């Protein structure tokens, strides 16, 4: 078991021959992901890394069964690619692209909701069900099967902690990147609910950051969860009102502060780690 994706998930890569796509298709294949096809307009007909390339998503669907797609398309035209996938009826859309205009994001997130599709991201590292399927960009070596569900707003911080967990002997059932932009498809709460229901997941690590109120929202649901949650929040030392890379990480009107998030999470029963290295320590105690 795992959440959202597993060893049977058939994946396509939109933007397969681009700079990002061409690098990560290799990594995904190496991880064992069932990549059935790629899309690059104008490159239809070629084979890339052993994977057939098509001009459009529709062309793929005329030849393959597809469960999920991953978008490596430059920000300015990413909306078109996401809409293409959603319109074609693909049920899981992972949007790696960062710097997408937020008005474009609002539109395709709304359309995904209307189509009943799961949209992960944008500006996410993707999703990885350890040992089964990786859709996105995390380095392969730190994601090994295990009892910990991991969800994060940040990519590298998630890898960091996944590695520390692995070093401590704890693999992950599934790791999901919620995405670093202001608005996103799947949220903490939706992901936590899936982990709560997943028999393979015994504890959840939530990696948040300052800005927005995703962690405060998550706290409301964590209160109801039967599985333990360990949280780490980045940005304790950030000066207020300075944008720290993620558009979401703006402290606005006193909401979204480090202190507020830690308080909400603690009150809900989550264990909050001060430093990344404390995460495996806390997990270790919980699952001992």
């Amino acid at each position, binding site marked *: 078991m795992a959440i959202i994706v597993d060893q049977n998930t058939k994946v396509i890569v939109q933007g397969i021959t681009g700079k990002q796509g061409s690098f990560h298709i290799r990594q995904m294949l190496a991880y064992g992901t069932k990549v059935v096809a790629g899309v690059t307009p104008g490159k239809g007909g070629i084979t890339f890394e052993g994977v057939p390339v098509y001009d459009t998503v529709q062309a793929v669907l005329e030849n393959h069964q597809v469960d999920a797609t991953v978008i490596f398309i430059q920000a300015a035209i990413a909306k078109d690619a996401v809409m293409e996938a959603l319109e074609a009826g693909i049920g899981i859309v992972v949007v790696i692209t960062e710097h997408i205009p937020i008005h474009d994001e609002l539109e395709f997130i709304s359309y995904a909701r209307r189509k009943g599709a799961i949209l992960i991201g944008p500006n996410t590292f993707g999703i990885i069900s350890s040992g089964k399927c990786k859709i996105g960009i*995390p380095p392969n070596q730190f994601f090994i099967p295990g009892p910990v569900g991991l969800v994060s*707003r940040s990519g590298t911080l998630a890898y960091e902690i996944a590695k520390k967990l692995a070093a401590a002997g704890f693999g992950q059932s599934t790791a999901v990147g919620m995405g670093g932009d202001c608005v996103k498809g799947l949220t903490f709460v939706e992901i936590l609910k899936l982990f709560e229901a997943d028999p393979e997941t015994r504890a959840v690590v939530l990696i948040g950051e300052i800005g927005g109120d995703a962690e405060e929202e998550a706290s409301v649901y964590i209160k109801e969860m039967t599985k333990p949650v360990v949280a780490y929040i980045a940005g304790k030392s950030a000066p207020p009102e*300075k944008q720290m890379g993620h558009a979401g990480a703006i402290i606005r009107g006193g909401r979204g502060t480090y202190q507020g998030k830690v308080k909400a999470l603690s009150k809900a029963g989550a264990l909050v780690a001060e430093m990344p*290295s404390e995460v495996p320590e806390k997990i270790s105690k919980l699952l001992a």
Partner: protein
Amino acid sequence: MRIFEYIGKELFNRFGLPVPKGKVVSCADEAALAAAEIGPVVVKAQILSGKRGKSGGIRFANTPAEAKSIALELLGANIRGYLVEKLLVEEKLAVDQEFYLAVTIDEEAKSPVIIASNQGGIDIEEVPENRILKVHTDAELGMYPFIARNIVRRLGLDLGSQHGKELVKAILATYQVFQEKDAVLVEINPLVFSGEKIFAADAKVIIDPEARFRQKDIPYVEDQTETEKLAHDLGLSYVELKGDIAVMANGAGIAMSTLDILMHYGGTPANFLDVVGGTDTETIARSLEILLAKKPKVIFINIFGGSTRCDDVARAYVKVKKKGSGIQVPVVIRLEGTNQDKGRRILQECGIEAYTDMEEAAAKAVELAACAPAGSSS
């Protein structure tokens, strides 16, 4: 990115939302001329900050002479950290009623939201919750007049009155600015009735920086230091801080965490630099040079490779090291993730042993900074 009030008002004007008669001036004589033409005026410092009124940046002048003397005082002054280079000299309106109106994005609802109150003119944070109306729209469906009519009705205005009709039009125009100009915030406080007519007396507009490529007609204001600008031109996220340990990390989350950890060990970061995923050797080398130019005591490079490849980072280090004046400050490098072995080997050939654990590496950077003399690199 914020834009100046007068540019926001130009946008409003273009979308049919009336603004007070006004002129933008950059010298005191022009201010006097504008006042002579307009009559009693408000002189408003054009800076990218709120709370201008409380800081003396918004002043009234009844005569051209008064306008001139206020302009002399404001131009070149520093208000809330900003140099005043331009003033908006604007008709002083007879205000009958003030509203608050904004369109922004509700992250939790994942949709645009219109915020309105009939208690305008004061900070919206000071208005009681139950006097603030929040109406969400559907990003796909967009705006309709009926949505504006419901807002006006709930604000207690008569929809059949001139005021009611003007407010409906103002809400539609404000939303149109938000939608068509890729704004993340359009805020008018106050939106005023002066006689039968409505005016946007202020304009706070923030444009989505990611949409800049398709909003080329807006004159953006550079609200950045020289170094920040250099980094942004490379496509990187950079914020200047006050400490002495220069930081490079890949990913906003890990970069923030890196600052947290440095401070945890008693260090002070000199900056936040996120070399975003997938950045190549050349860009990383350039950003390393940017950090060097700020003469920190120590440089801490914290890379956990995903899209960013460790060998690219190592090559960038070697490149800068071998070039010109080289690297004169201690550099602590932590490499982990994609192509880590390659990266490590490249550094070893250069005599550097990369760390694998970021907390250990951070502790080392703090230790080195504590030992280093001030301005060690020169």
